[in-house]
């Protein structure tokens, strides 16, 4: 029987008794007496539980990553270094990020502060975080504070971002760590089994032997069942150590993303080169969530408001599925069969997602509308792509929405109205009317049916306006809207 081996604040931990359904937060607080990390919500939205773990860049370079310990199952810590707020000071001297937080009065009641400090810690050692307001917002949007109004926290962040030394006594050990993952793990405790095989074949064997085991990779969705519904999964199959599922590649005509690639890595890889994807990922969730949430997970949970699906539908993404019986390809359009239901067969795993590069004649964008700009669930999200041929004729239209139906889906009637016609405001206005054929949205606490339909119409009109000047428009650093119309006439 394997025990879990990992470090907490540089102390080697060997754990063989805690249930694999234990979250890292509960483990730290209840079993290690480390009460710095707090439970403010147990749903990954407040960030008071934030800790930093060793992770790795897509290139395999070890680095620090802030994660929500409330959604991080203990076996996921295997092979990693974990830092909590208690582990940063040295010989009574606070770490630079702690000192900055004190000096700026970034704490008032102090309850969110340990999480804020850990997000600051990651920022300190990031080398891609300049004083770019969008990146700064992204870095801290997963830490709610009810007291300060955030101004001092922003000041602390600006002071310390990117200032960390790569070889100091926090970053040094992490950077010297062997790459995490890649090591197969079978951990059983409390009658519960957590398997994290090191190859796809092993993963498929496990799944074939026990088709009802739950698949997990980052755990940001599945762990909610543990923390909110108090479920305990008797068997979990983790895909996060399967190298084939963690590859990012790009060839002449497509991007290829392994299903277990965290969204933060996709965001980093595509940030400057693929505006539609970048726009969606910017507001997908917090940094902590994007470090763990995976593309495959977001697609396969089949939520009607999963934010990856609409943009990928518009981009014509294709999925590769594997089982012991073999492999098959499926257009993303065919994945969703009903509310929270997919075309995946028992024993089948989504292995990778192929996104065609945008043709030169394409105009494409992605949108997300929610009550709060950051870290909120969409009322409506959308991905839109049109190709404009000679004489301004629309040769292809892929207009997809989330939040408008039981599944993320394309607006086929709208697309029919567009294709073959010229790309003009009049044609778009006519096509908008067809949205009512495609969707009958619902009223819920996020938005009314009226709002969903109105916004869907307006997003399509806005897409037309927005792509007049630039075919692949990006968002400004501090957008006031998901539509970038500041320069539109």
């Amino acid at each position, binding site marked *: 029987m394997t025990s879990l081996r990992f470090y907490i604040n540089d102390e080697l931990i060997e754990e063989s008794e805690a249930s694999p359904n234990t979250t890292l937060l509960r483990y730290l607080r209840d079993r290690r007496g480390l009460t710095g990390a707090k439970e403010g919500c147990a749903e990954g939205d407040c960030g008071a539980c934030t800790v930093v773990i060793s992770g790795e860049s897509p290139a395999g370079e070890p680095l620090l990553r802030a994660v929500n310990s409330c959604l991080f199952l203990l076996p996921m810590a295997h092979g990693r270094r974990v830092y909590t707020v208690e582990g940063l000071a040295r010989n009574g001297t606070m770490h630079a990020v702690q000192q900055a937080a*004190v000096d700026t009065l970034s704490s008032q*009641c102090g309850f969110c502060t340990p999480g804020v400090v850990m997000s600051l810690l990651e920022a300190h050692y990031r080398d891609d975080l300049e004083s770019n307001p969008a990146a700064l917002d992204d870095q801290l949007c997963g830490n709610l504070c009810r007291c300060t109004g955030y101004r001092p926290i922003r000041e602390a962040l600006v002071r310390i971002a990117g200032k960390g030394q790569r070889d100091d006594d926090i970053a040094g050990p992490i950077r010297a760590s062997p790459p995490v993952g890649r090591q197969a793990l079978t951990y059983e405790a409390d009658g519960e089994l957590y398997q994290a095989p090191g190859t796809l074949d092993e993963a498929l064997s496990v799944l074939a032997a026990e088709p009802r085991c739950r698949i997990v990779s980052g755990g940001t969705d599945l762990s909610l069942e543990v923390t909110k519904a108090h479920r305990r999964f008797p068997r979990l199959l983790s895909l996060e150590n399967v190298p084939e599922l963690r590859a990012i590649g790009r060839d002449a005509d497509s991007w290829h993303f392994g299903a277990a690639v965290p969204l933060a890595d996709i965001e980093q890889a595509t940030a400057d080169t693929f505006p539609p994807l970048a726009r969606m990922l910017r507001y997908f969730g917090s940094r902590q969530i994007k470090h763990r949430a995976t593309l495959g997970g977001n697609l396969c949970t089949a939520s009607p408001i999963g934010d990856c699906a609409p943009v990928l539908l518009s981009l014509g993404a294709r999925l590769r599925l594997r089982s012991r019986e073999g492999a098959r390809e499926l257009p993303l359009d065919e994945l969703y069969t009903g509310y929270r239901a997919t075309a995946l067969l028992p024993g089948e795993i989504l292995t990778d997602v192929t996104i065609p590069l945008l043709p030169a004649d394409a105009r494409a964008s992605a949108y997300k509308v929610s009550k709060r700009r950051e870290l909120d669930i969409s009322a409506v999200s959308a991905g839109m792509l049109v190709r404009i041929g000679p004489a301004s004729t629309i040769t292809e239209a892929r207009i997809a929405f989330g939040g408008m139906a039981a599944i993320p889906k394309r607006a086929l009637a709208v697309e029919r109205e567009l294709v073959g016609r010229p790309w003009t405001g009049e044609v778009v206005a006519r096509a908008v009317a067809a949205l009512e054929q495609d969707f009958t949205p619902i009223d819920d606490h996020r938005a009314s049916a009226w709002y969903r339909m109105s916004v869907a119409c307006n997003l399509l009109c806005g897409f037309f306006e927005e792509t007049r000047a630039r075919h692949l428009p990006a968002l400004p650093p501090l957008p006031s809207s*998901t539509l970038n119309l500041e320069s539109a006439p």
Partner: protein
Amino acid sequence: MKLPSPDDGALLHRPSPHESGRRHVTGEALYVDDFPLPPGTLVAAVGLSPHAHARIRHRDGAAALSVPGIRAVFFAADVRGDNCIGPIVHDEPLLAEETVNCVGQVVALVAGESSTACRAGIAALQIAYDPLAPRLSIEDAHAASDFIGPYHLINRGDFAEGYRRATHRIEGTLHTPPQEHFYLETQVALAIPLEDGAMHIHSSTQHPTEVQHMVARVLGIGYHRVVCEVNRIGGGFGGKESQATQVAALAALAARATNRPVKLWLDRDTDMAITGKRHPFRADYRAGFDADGHLLALDVVLYADAGWTTDLSPAILDRALFHLDGAYFVPAARFTGRLCRTNLPSNTAFRGFGGPQGMLVIDTILNRAAERLQMDPAEVRRRNAYADAPRNRTPYDQEVRYNRLPRLFDELLPAARYAGRRQAIEAFNAGSTYVKRGIGFQPVKFGISFTKSMLNQAGAYVLVFTDGTVQVNHAGTEMGQGLHTKILAICSAELGVATGAIRIMSTSTEKVPNTSPTAASSGSDLNGQAVQSACTTLRHRLIPIAAAMLGVEETDELTFASGLVSLAADPARSRTFAEVANAAWMARIPLAATGYYATPGIHFDPATGTGEPFYYFAFGGAVAEVEVCSLTGQYRVTRVDILHDAGNSLVPSIDRGQIEGGFIQGLGWLTTEDLRRDPAGRLITRGPSTYKIPSFGDAPTEFFVRLLDRAAQPGVIHGSKAVGEPPFMLAISVITALRHSMRACGDSGSGVELSLPATPESVLRAITRQRS
């Protein structure tokens, strides 16, 4: 900003770090849920009503009691003392009796060895209900005439005459939104049974004395057998003023019965489901203006949704009525208020305590008037703001003394370049099809004092040790607002001791008894004075000792500073504070002293609706700018300029934090915080995934806060002013700015209709109406 270190000496009127800052950032700061538990501690969990209104037909805990690990199950009949925890009116059972009156009302309590056992225990409870028809809105309660208490009235002048003379009449109804406190630390208490029937409670409460009292009553023992101690609170905002009591009393009930320590901690879903919110109000108003935008007469009927019990609602309604005038002189006023009883969790104190709701009414009316008269809303505000006599008396006939409003208009508007920016915005809007901008100004006048006059008192107990170190006990609780930091500054200044030699003790009912809640922005005013008074007593005891040591007369002036007691005329002649303290002990002089303070001169007569309920007023002003997308209704607050009157600020860095934090919390109330219930009265938005308080990117990147200079307030500790609540209402500037942007989207002819909170959906609806 270079902050002084703890050994730098007096910090008064200088920026200083938060007293617990270092402990916050290292994880050393302990909250109740972090405490190492005494051996044998049980945890508890609550069984909640699934119905908004029902009769309990049957309850049986036998099956729950047989769940492994469950040690005790409690219903109302198991309470030996008084099963009632209503803070003002005795109308709130700790555990439900014959009926349940809201979803989430606590019906049962289980205590067990683990939270897993407790969950299983709760699931095994057998409770049967006969559902009754619930009342879930102000309108439901009104229709059934189900009110709490009498009408509250404030009348001044002849409304009918003023309204008749008005050239512009504005009528309407405003619904102010509820708000969840969302303190990051949920409600929690640890009850430890002691010998001789005593009970020690660690609670996350703003009102330790009320916890002490209610625990004693529930257990049927004297107050002297209960100690309530508060180390720190992870955010309160009013939500832990009266409503921390229930959790503490439940923990104590189980601790007494099992004779084991019991911790009750509510997870976020449970906390949000069962605790009260900021009261939503309905305001029916009629206002008359002259052609120049002067308000002549105002009639407002306020209905507050009190929820199912009285809680603090009468005082909240009073404060709403006291703030219906906003920052403006109302020549003829008829203000009426009524509390509606609904089958919802009992709404409670929340930063501003009704004041924001009242102010939102008058400022909405002024915005509508400005739109009707095609005037700049800031100009309408200037014309109506309190000024010299006779335009200086409130509708409840209190004179507005030390009126800073003229200075706010004269200093903030130019500093924020309000007029120029407003012009530039209108030019921008004229040339922009989809993106519209807006700017708004908000003046705030907020009355400082508990409107229940007897609460305006505080005590302190300061202990000096023979090495010259000091422990300070006072009546206030530290919930993040920086009270302890201010007390530290005060004590350090009074005794001339470095802050590193002073320790602020946890708040405890065994050190300072019969305390008021830390609420109503009063913490530093009341406790600061009490601590000052204790320190003065100690100084007077030490002066003869020091004088003898220095070989001077007792009447010679001595200064206490930098850890020394020295002769004012010749500072080289000095002894250390420690030497003096030790000498005092040798001379058998007591080195511990109490201090007390009661706010003078305040009174209010509800029968006439007149008096001086407030010791003074706090003032502030904000200019906010927004950029709105007229296709989605999404928007961003792009810049905020605040000039706030904190008097001669005790610790400016702390006050700035209150101002910024208050503004953003007010912004949340008015914009993203959209509390939703289903038709059966169940709260749908029960966690941060669905209930959206402002996040990092919602704070404007251009956020300029300045404290009003030369503004020392007479009669308040070191010339300072209360600052906890007033800045909350500065956020109304954002609503004015949004309305400005919407005016650029079209003209419906009937003015902007923006329902609150101003979610993107609400904004898009308003824009759509403007365009129709």
